[in-house]
């Protein structure tokens, strides 16, 4: 998975939870939970959506790697087969 694909996947997952959310203008190091006002329940749902799209389970301890666009992109490109 390329960084661009990873970003698109992240956009899709967050869009499911926060309709209309746009990753576009967000700095790479912005905290996604703060930026989109995700509570813990929302965040679990984002992780669930992401898992569904990429096709592998993302565990709780890995969810920390999804806090910013930059870290999430790195995590997804490393974990998802090309």
């Amino acid at each position, binding site marked *: 998975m390329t960084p661009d694909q990873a970003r698109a996947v992240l956009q899709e997952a967050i869009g499911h939870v926060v309709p209309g959310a746009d990753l576009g203008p967000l700095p790479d190091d912005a905290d996604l939970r703060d930026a989109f*006002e995700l509570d813990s*329940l929302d965040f*679990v749902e984002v*992780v669930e959506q992401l898992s*569904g799209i990429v096709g592998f*389970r993302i565990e*709780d301890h890995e969810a920390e790697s999804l806090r910013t666009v930059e870290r999430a992109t790195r995590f997804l490109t490393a974990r998802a087969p090309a």
Partner: protein
Amino acid sequence: MPSLGADMTEGTVLEWLVAPGDVVHRGDIVAVVDTTKSAVEVECFDDGVVASLDVDPGTKVPVGTVLAHLTDADGGTAVAGPPAAPDTHAGDAAEPDAAAAPAPAAPPTATRLPHRGGPGRISPLARRLADELGVDLATVHGTGLHGVIRAEDVRAAAASTPATGAASPPVAGHDAPARALDMRRSIAALMTRSNTEIPHYHLALTVDLHRTLEWVRERNLELSLAERLVPAACLLRATALAAREVPELNGHWVEDAFRPAEHVDLGLILSLRSGGLLVPAIAGAEELDAVAMMTRVRDLTRRARGGRLRGSDLDPPSLTVSNLGDQGVESVAGVIYPPQVALVGFGAVSERPWAVDGMLGVRPLVTVTLAADHRATDGAIGSRFLKALDRALQDPASTMEQKER
């Protein structure tokens, strides 16, 4: 018109989802009603055939007004009206066959209802959005099941329509600023009443969540993604168990006396992205283990945020929980929702120094608070409640898993 919350006195029928002649079942969503706080899907509480719809969409009526009449499904031909006076009118809330009342029943089966021509169904979120964006719903093509107009259809329509003068709102209801104002007013009225009438006392206890979080972590490795727990589910489970153990805090203060509630119906304060609060309830929370609790919280939150709460979600709670942990504050000094007699508050779970077995360690701690009505209980009972809640969180393997006996 069912009462959809303690402070509701009237409601506006936004639309009917059934027509005369339709067969309806207990739990079917038959109408959408606008309260000051939210559009709410009203469930039918009985099986039957719709004989007549007695309140036109756009009409505001007091709680208790008869909305529709049903006849028995097995009657074949439509026997006019219910067994009792078929000309029942406004104010007779006790007429059971006539009032479309909220009922915790079968899952929603809106798709079972026959699709009607004309404008078709519109999701409450779509309606609100259309109001905000000035989109005429009559021009929107619904892409949902059976032509239901969804929020994205409205957005698509808004994007494709050049901005002209404000389109006339097609359905009576609240526009967004008016709704925000209404919601502010009803919160103001209720909280003022609480602070005027209820002599509050406040207690706090710091609870070590180490064992509970470990349990959640292990459990989540086994659970399917859709069932995965957040610690808040355990906090609610522990609250329900404590309310069972200390029933003096679970119920209502009515006519100068405490009336204990039969079940633990946990009110959940949800803040909305658009501002304001909703307090839907998890009925019978004492019967739910952590996983079942999580499912209910998930469903409820989704419905509340999507503007699709059901009437039964707004049945009056017996005890309310305010979880501000995600907002990052340490503790909550709550204001009780009358006529309840207590409110439980959770602050953020954070790692802090803590003495364990004579050693200083770092533990995930949460401050649990209780606001309670001094007319109903004293501090000793409140303390028992908080200690019971703590105990439940120290032994997750036995408290979170098993159903209460």
